[in-house]
């Protein structure tokens, strides 16, 4: 009983301190958080409008029935899968510079997964029926429906990416050595899990013969290749920001190692893309229609053409930047390359992937979809949510990692309060 009460007091103290950590910061921090909250609230208000009127408030219709929300979802699942590129070097190869930041990377993956899940939820027509998807309580169509697999995979990955960092952080907080026998299996599980979430997302699109643009075997490898470009690129930028605004120590070595991995992933991405392009443009079957729409324009409809060519240019330039060691190790070009990758892969995997699947539609109709203001604002709102969650997590995780926020303080307080 005594122990339970102590445990409760300790936990409460921990929670209190985290709230204080989160509530105190520099002016920049407040500005950042408040602007994120403002975007979140605006996004939520617009979402309410969509919830009331129905999805007719978006620009989606029967011809293009998935739009900006699912595009962002695809991209974010890929970004989340990228945490594996930190887990493998640190836990399998014990590469020290990355080992120091792997926990932060896993928390980034968790935030990305939360964003992905939020995007799916706002895309659902009936949010009040989400409980139908819960196994045993609802009626989940497992194993036939890939969406069911995706729900399980995403939630499992989220669970892992919360369990592992939180466990390690709590152990750091208590200044205790983590029980590797307990946590290492989970860590090693998160590696195939990362590959799994993005493969399942790819299979979601892949298994539809009705959409020949997606019904290509190369889809799952392409998804993984582009995921391992975009996620680490975001991580590189984020960690540089973290390095600047906090006392966390992140070595340049870590960033350079990650960028080397991006080079290989981008090569694979470009190679797989050229393989697809060759197959379609050489065989010249009817199924070339969607590719034509994206790269050249189809029957006069060419909205996406400038976007995809911009994305291709950015990807190739980024590949060159990451390939050459000089440009890779020079922070300004590295950052430029990262931004190119982030935007380029977003275009290629988001709108440049989801929308052409619907153009032309199975009966040959062409509808050019542009997201309307409501979709844009709700999307920004969700991105802001993810960034805020990540910021708050960092605000707690970094003091623990750097040793500023530990249990010893509490022990001192308790000792001071105890009657002598």
């Amino acid at each position, binding site marked *: 009983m005594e122990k339970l009460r102590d445990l409760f007091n300790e936990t409460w103290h921990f929670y209190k301190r985290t709230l204080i950590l989160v509530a105190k910061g520099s002016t920049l921090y407040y500005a950042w958080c408040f602007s994120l909250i403002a975007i979140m609230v605006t996004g939520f208000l617009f979402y309410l409008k969509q919830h009331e009127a129905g*999805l007719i408030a978006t620009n989606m219709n029967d011809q293009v029935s998935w739009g900006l929300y699912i595009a962002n979802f695809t991209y974010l699942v890929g970004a989340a899968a990228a945490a594996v590129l930190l887990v493998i070097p640190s836990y399998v190869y014990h590469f020290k510079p990355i080992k120091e930041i792997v926990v932060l990377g896993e928390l980034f993956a968790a935030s990305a997964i939360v964003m992905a899940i939020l995007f799916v939820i706002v895309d659902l027509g009936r949010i009040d029926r989400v409980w139908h998807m819960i196994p045993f309580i609802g009626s989940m*169509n497992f194993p036939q429906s890939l969406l069911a697999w995706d729900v399980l995979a995403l939630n499992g990955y989220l669970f892992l990416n919360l369990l592992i960092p939180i466990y390690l952080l709590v152990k750091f907080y208590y200044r205790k050595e983590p029980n590797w026998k307990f946590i290492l299996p989970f860590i090693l599980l998160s590696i195939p899990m990362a590959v799994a979430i993005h493969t399942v997302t790819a299979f979601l699109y892949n298994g539809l013969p009705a959409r020949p643009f997606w019904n290509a075997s190369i889809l799952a490898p392409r998804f993984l290749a582009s995921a391992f470009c975009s996620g680490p690129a975001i991580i590189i930028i984020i960690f540089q920001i973290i390095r600047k605004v906090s006392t966390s120590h992140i070595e340049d070595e870590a960033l350079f190692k990650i960028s080397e991995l991006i080079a290989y992933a981008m090569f694979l991405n470009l190679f797989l893309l050229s393989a697809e392009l060759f197959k379609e443009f050489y065989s010249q079957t009817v199924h070339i229609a969607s590719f034509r729409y994206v790269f050249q324009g189809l029957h006069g409809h060419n909205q996406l053409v400038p976007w995809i060519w911009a994305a291709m240019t950015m990807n190739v330039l980024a590949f060159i930047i990451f390939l050459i060691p000089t440009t890779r190790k020079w922070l300004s070009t590295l950052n430029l390359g990262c931004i190119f990758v982030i935007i380029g892969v977003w275009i290629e995997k988001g709108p440049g992937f989801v929308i052409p699947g619907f153009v032309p539609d*199975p*009966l040959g109709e062409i509808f050019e979809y542009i997201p309307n203001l409501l979709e844009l604002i709700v999307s920004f709102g969700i991105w802001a949510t993810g960034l805020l969650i990540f910021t708050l997590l960092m605000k707690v995780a970094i003091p623990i990692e750097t040793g500023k926020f530990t249990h010893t303080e509490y022990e001192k307080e308790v000792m001071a309060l105890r009657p002598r």
Partner: protein
Amino acid sequence: METMQNKHYTRREFIRNLSLTTLAGLSLPLLSSCTKEEAEDFLQKHFHEMTEEEKKQVIEKLEQRYFQKYGRKFQISTKEAVPDTLWAYGLELSRCIGCRRCVYACVKENNSSRHHPQLHWIRVLRLKRGNLINLENSEHYYDPDLVPEKGFIYLPVQCQQCQNPPCVKVCPVHATWQEPDGIVVVDYNWCIGCRYCIAACPYKGRVFNWAEPNIPKEEVNPSVHYLGNRPRMKCAVDKCTFCIQRVRSGRYPACVEACPTGTRKFGNLLDPNSEIRYIIDRKRVFRLKEDFGTEPKFYYFFEA
């Protein structure tokens, strides 16, 4: 020491109160924007899991609701499939003149939303002669003064009630399934509106209620089937059900009856004396996109 404790206390209280109010503030507008119907239907079970008693209660609730909304007494049937039936459709392409009478007869019979959104379960495509089943060159919005136009063929497309339906495979919550008589149906109260089935259908057979449907009161059809043409709600998928409310009582679907040139045929594949079996045995039938392996039950054929 005491003042520090007090400071902590007020700060803790403040943070707690703030977080609770934010949560309540966020969820209230979300909860209040739920309609009364949504609240009533929230815990409704899947159609297959309902007992007879529960089905009766749901039917009563719906009858009351429709009476309030449309002022008509509805007959909502939950009639099961007739044994030994597998419905199939025949369409004589040489006779279709593209008049779209079937489209609007279907809309009327099946209580489809007329506008905002406009839901058509049947879509008539106009194809140029000589370039037949390349649907990329189809025209959906032809609007001449008179049909048929010279040099064109008209191809009506609707849900093909595939024997191997890709839409049923992908639904994450089992909201759509194939009945024993071959009709693929949707439990409108179970559908979560993810639109995966719409992405999976090769024939664009499924449409989505992007908003609350608009049906003029005087045009509503009160004899409905729970899985068929009962008035739907916003953000649920619907599709042609071969007029399940008619065929299970032996009547032709509305589109068959509406066609002025006798293009449409209907029957039971398992009955060797049915019209559709006669057609399959003697005419040169084909099905759309057969290479997808969906085994559609919509047989097109040409005479001249």
